[in-house]
């Protein structure tokens, strides 16, 4: 599903590469934790998958597509197959729960009937029944992140990228977030989650890829957060 072949990414005006000779494969339906300290290259990895950045060298395949050969006007179609969740939720403050989720479908031109059908379904999936008319500032951090996950998942993407989704959320609420991610993963969606949260990684027992200074230093299935130390 995601295939990195000897990928190096160096940002302009920076000496050390953000990613250096990274080789890895993520299969369809996998759940992968991406761990490592700040600046280790986790966010660069996610940006490369979305083609927000181009690699300095090496090849990247996402959902069967060679990103180097993907023309600019086809990038939006790639992104429709990838859902994204962030630490800061990125909800629209002037739209309610339903409208925030529907927005993701409206802007890719889905018919209104389709939107009316699938948005309530996904609201149920993330556990926000009865809160569809709430505004984001009326919700807790955990609930806002559920809205963001619903928005990321509503178009049934093949891949869900989560960049520290529990970074702004207390541990008790985080468990609920992880349950939703797990539920999404069980529908067949590949999930890649960058995180600092050792407790979560240890409890989930999924594949762990550890980055340090832009290099893959550990890749183990059913891993834990700090095993290398």
């Amino acid at each position, binding site marked *: 599903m995601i295939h990195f072949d000897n990928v190096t990414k160096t940002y302009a005006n920076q000496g050390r590469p953000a990613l250096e000779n990274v080789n890895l494969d993520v299969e369809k339906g996998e759940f992968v934790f991406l761990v490592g300290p700040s600046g280790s290259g986790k966010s660069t990895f996610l940006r490369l998958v979305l083609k927000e950045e181009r690699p300095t060298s090496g090849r990247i395949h996402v959902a069967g597509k060679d990103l180097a050969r993907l023309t600019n*006007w086809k990038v939006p179609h*790639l992104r429709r197959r990838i859902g994204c969740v962030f630490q800061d939720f990125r909800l629209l403050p002037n739209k309610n729960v339903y409208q925030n989720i529907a927005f993701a479908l409206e802007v890719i031109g889905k018919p209104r009937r389709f939107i009316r059908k699938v948005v309530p379904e996904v609201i149920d999936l993330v556990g926000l029944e009865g809160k569809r008319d709430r505004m984001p500032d009326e919700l807790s951090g955990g609930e806002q992140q559920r809205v963001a996950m619903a928005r990321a998942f509503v178009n049934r993407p093949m891949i869900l990228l989560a960049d520290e989704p529990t970074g702004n959320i207390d541990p008790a609420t985080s468990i609920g977030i992880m349950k939703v991610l797990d539920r999404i993963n069980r529908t067949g969606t590949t999930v890649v989650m960058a995180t600092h949260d050792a407790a979560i990684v240890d409890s989930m027992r999924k594949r762990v890829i550890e980055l340090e200074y832009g290099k893959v230093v550990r890749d183990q299935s059913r891993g834990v957060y700090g095993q290398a130390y």
Partner: protein
Amino acid sequence: MRAQFVFSEVWIGLRRNLTMTVALIVVVAISLSLLGTGLMFVKQVDNTRTYWQSRVQLSVYLCSPGTLGGTCQKNGPVTQQEIATIQQELNSNRDIVSAKFVTQAEAYQQFRSEFHDNQPIVKYTAANQIPSSFEIRLKNTEADALPVSQVVDGYPGVASVVDDSSILGGFYRLLDGARNAVVIIAIFLLVAAILLVANTIRLSAFNRRRETSIMRLVGASNFYVQLPFLVEGMIAGLIGWLVAAGLLVLVKSVLLSNLHNIFPTGVTLTTADLVEVIIVAMITALLICGATSFLTLRRYLRV
């Protein structure tokens, strides 16, 4: 494509930076009306030129009793033989299309009808005081007027040669000057309008960077992300154009009509001329607003 979505986004954008939108509309309106006024001046000048060029271009006045100019004092009134000689000379000249002889009686009739408002002048002017003349049409007014007038000037019986374009020259210069001033100001204002469009769109894009970043993230096409901004710029331009169209109608009916009273040129701008100018203004507005929005968006809303 969902039109309702695009237009609700456009409406939000126009409302959110209302002051910039109003400034943009005002500048577009003023620059377009000045540009239109300049175009109407151009048309007025052109129409007047064509009108006069199709008429008399050079008048050769002949001696009548009491005329002082040219050879008249020495020779007295023009004789039939002198008229024939001059006619022959004019007919043989290749630069002349036609030379029509106007008798004193004809000239007097014309004089009376032109000054019918001013009876004292008519009353005290005798029929034989109005000179007979040749009215000459030239192939090429600008270039031939001087050489041709030199040919007949000084002939026995010729009082004076008058180049009609020199009489209209002052009028033309006035119109040309007014047109140039108006067009130059219009160009400056159009540059200001372009900068304002760019700035308005940039502010709008900045105001909605949350929305647009999410749109890109969920895979909205560039077209879908940019269209609301593009439409926003064009709508502001069109409102400005509507205001300008109103001002242009006003300019035509008040300003140019007054000008016509001062200089009775025999030519007025038609409604078709006005419509043409207004259409040119609309195309200018759409081009400027559309192209500037598009270029600004390429810079500020990249994939």
